[in-house]
């Protein structure tokens, strides 16, 4: 993405004349103890589905996060979110989101909102914490892991909300539409590597290490404008009180798959998908989340290579005082429909089972234990001399401490 947009946002945030009381600083340190029998991680050039490797058991940095947010005048606010994930990244610390939102106080039942900058489209129903953090698991679902890896809206998003709850109704509705650029490579990772389950979000100026057929380990750039054609998404959501939330979204980056960018050694990947999500909450603190996503991606002149990808999950969580228990079942599949190298069509499918227990002994401290098991079958593992079928599991203990400016 263009660095001048981000730096202007940063300057606007740091040197605003808005009252300091409305500015907030948040720092989170997330440390991990990990043991895993995973294949070589995709981060290290393998086709393992996890962030951890069998060879890297021990203490790790999960995430170190710095975030600033606050008001700019009466109707604007900004969010700057930067994280360090590992010492091997392109930049030791890098932005994951940086945006300005115009959100004037509603003067009637219809409210308009506009977001400009770099941010997540409203797809994940798991990531409820600030900084797109997942309060249920250390490792996100396959579906939302992919969102964090390859997707970011770098552009403008318009939202129109019907605030029924303020208007004697039990329902709220919202429509969203966005125009964006700098997301042309989106699709390369899910096509070549398949889905994965972890918590690392690709930073705006960073890269994602992934395996490429014949190319070994590569640092893929994901946030780049290649063909000069903007993409779009449109979506809708409905809420019934604070119990039921339903969302749907159609995304199309409208990339011209014939255009190759030598600077990042990649094509524009023409990617579109549909996504639907449902979240239910009960009075006795049960939460159910279900999401479904199905898409396709094309690359090369005349779309000579094509892949279909699908992911779904079902999550069940129960809060019991300071304890939160969560279970999740994931299904995912990527299949190559055609290729200029016929006979080597990639096909990856699998499922994952996750269990997590989170304990909050203090208001700003969370301790999570997570067990994750992924069963997958990817024929391209043969290229690495491995069996296509893999069962990988990890056991992690995460300690997350958050410092926030503020009184509590």
């Amino acid at each position, binding site marked *: 993405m263009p660095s001048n947009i981000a730096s202007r946002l940063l300057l606007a945030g740091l040197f605003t004349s808005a009252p300091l009381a409305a500015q907030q600083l948040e720092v989170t340190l997330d440390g991990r103890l990990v043991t895993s029998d995973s294949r070589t991680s995709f981060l290290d050039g393998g086709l393992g589905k996890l962030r951890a490797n069998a060879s890297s058991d021990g203490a790790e940095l999960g995430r170190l996060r710095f975030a600033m947010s606050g008001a700019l005048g009466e109707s604007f606010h900004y969010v700057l979110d930067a994280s360090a994930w590992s010492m091997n990244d392109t930049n030791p610390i890098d932005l994951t989101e940086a945006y300005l939102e115009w959100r004037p106080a509603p003067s009637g039942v219809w409210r308009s909102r506009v977001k400009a900058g770099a941010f997540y489209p409203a797809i994940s129903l798991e990531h409820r914490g600030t900084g797109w953090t997942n309060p249920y698991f250390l490792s996100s679902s396959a579906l939302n892991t992919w969102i964090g890896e390859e997707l970011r809206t770098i552009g403008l998003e318009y939202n129109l909300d019907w605030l029924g709850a303020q208007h004697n109704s039990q329902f709220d509705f919202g429509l969203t539409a966005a125009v964006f650029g700098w997301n042309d490579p989106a699709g390369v990772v899910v096509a070549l590597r398949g889905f994965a389950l972890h918590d690392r979000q690709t930073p705006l100026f960073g890269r994602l290490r992934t395996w490429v057929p014949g190319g070994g380990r590569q640092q893929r750039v994901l946030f780049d404008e290649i063909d000069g054609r903007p993409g779009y998404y449109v979506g809708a959501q409905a809420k019934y*009180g604070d119990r039921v939330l339903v969302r749907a979204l159609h995304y199309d980056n409208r990339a011209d798959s014939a255009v190759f960018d030598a600077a990042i050694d990649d094509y524009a990947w023409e990617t579109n998908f549909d996504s639907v999500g449902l979240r239910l909450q009960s009075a006795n603190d049960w939460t159910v989340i279900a999401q479904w996503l199905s898409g396709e991606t094309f690359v090369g002149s005349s779309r000579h290579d094509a892949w279909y990808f699908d992911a779904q999950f079902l999550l069940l969580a129960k809060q019991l005082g300071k304890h939160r228990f969560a279970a999740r079942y994931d299904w995912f599949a990527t299949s190559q429909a055609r290729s200029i190298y016929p006979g080597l069509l990639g096909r990856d499918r699998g499922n994952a089972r996750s269990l997590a227990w989170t304990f909050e002994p203090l208001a700003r401290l969370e301790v999570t234990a997570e067990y994750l098991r992924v069963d997958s079958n990817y024929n391209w593992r043969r290229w690495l001399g491995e069996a296509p079928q893999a069962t990988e599991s990890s056991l992690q203990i995460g300690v997350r401490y958050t410092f926030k400016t503020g009184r509590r």
Partner: protein
Amino acid sequence: MYRFFDAVRKPAAILAAIAACGVPWALAGELSIRVVTKDGLPMAGAVVEIRNLTGQRRPVVPVDTRMDQVDLAFAPAVLVVPVGSHIAFPNSDVVSHQVYSFSPPKRFQLPLYRGKPYPPVTFDAPGIVTVGCNIHDNMLGYVLVTDAPYYGQTTQAGTWSSEALPPGDYAVSIWHPRLRNLAKPMLQNFSVAATGTRTEVLLRVSEPLRPERLTAKRSGWDEY
């Protein structure tokens, strides 16, 4: 409005029962309102407003109070105040809130803040004011601005009582955030027969209620 509830008045029987139990004399002339759901369960937190239909209306006295914001929820979520009252909206959360209302009796907004940077808001017209946070759409609060000389909220047992009212005709109106139609409180007329009699009014909601709002979420959660 009568179809929404049943009203029961039995002052003489109640008076006799109280006398038999040896309850102090001061209570004998009191007014007691009881609100129950369709299933007969007590309805706690219902707003009670009583207006006299005869005689001179007692003027209302404005109050100074507050509606705090704790764990992404208004606390209390429902306030009943006389016309002209001042309400402060401090924010005790770590995250910032932007409080607003576009309800006709009081339109206002307090730009994004934490702590208590703004002076109290004056509610100078009667009616139901729905309060929200522009950042956290699940936050809902209600201010009932009343011109009624007698008002309050029911206890956990679903009851509200007051000192004896002067003899005459009265209208009681009941409002609760779980009523199906929030714009229309339940109404019922009743009479106080003579000085020193105890009056008991039972109101039953005739429709199923809206689901209860869920308990507050963790303060660090956002609305992704």
